């Protein structure tokens, strides 16, 4: 089966610009998670979708971040306007069931805000 696909793989934008990251989960996986790793820190949870509904967005840093999952398929994460501290690697993960089964991660989008 195809894995979790993320694009772009890299994005360099200027402070104040807008960037949209996309994640295509494994087909049939209702659970979709966004995580982020900033330089020198551990990977941290951003939010969780179950189908098209936001289950938990407690990890979203602020209201400059907006995540959507229309139709319960792919998801987008928009940062507007981007700030320097938003730089990092954004990972998407999906799973069929919610539980202690582990997740399939995408390769990530490396975002650099200059």
């Amino acid at each position, binding site marked *: 089966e195809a894995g979790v696909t993320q694009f772009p793989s890299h994005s360099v934008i200027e402070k104040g610009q807008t960037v949209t990251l996309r994640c295509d989960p494994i087909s049939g996986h209702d659970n979709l998670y966004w995580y982020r790793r900033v330089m020198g820190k551990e*990977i941290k949870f951003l939010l969780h979708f179950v189908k098209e509904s936001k289950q*938990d967005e407690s990890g979203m840093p602020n209201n400059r971040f907006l995540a959507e999952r229309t139709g319960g398929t792919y998801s987008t994460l928009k940062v507007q306007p981007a700030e320097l501290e938003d730089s990092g690697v954004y990972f998407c*993960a999906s799973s069929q069931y919610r*539980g202690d*089964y582990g*997740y399939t991660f995408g390769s*990530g989008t490396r975002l650099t805000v200059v």
Partner: protein
Amino acid sequence: TQLLEQSPQFLSIQEGENLTVYCNSSSVFSSLQWYRQEPGEGPVLLVTVVTGGEVKKLKRLTFQFGDARKDSSLHITAAQPGDTGHYLCAGANRGSNYKLTFGKGTLLTVNP
């Protein structure tokens, strides 16, 4: 806030040596998951341990979950250069909707 302390952060050893990576927390997790990440890729699941005291083996890798489900270890026997990579532990909890709490990772280099 749950935290996972992973150690060591960096480890460089010779081929054939044994090593252990530790993940410790003051919090209880319903599962501890171990991932391996290659440069430019996302984490890839190696194993999930869910029962206190559980031991799982994957060839030369042995994973253990502490009795109290607050800590875990990864032991590699006779390390090979192919084991070189970034190893991450991550805890999940039913009460937190199974979102993962990650350790900072261990960057392992096995020299031939």
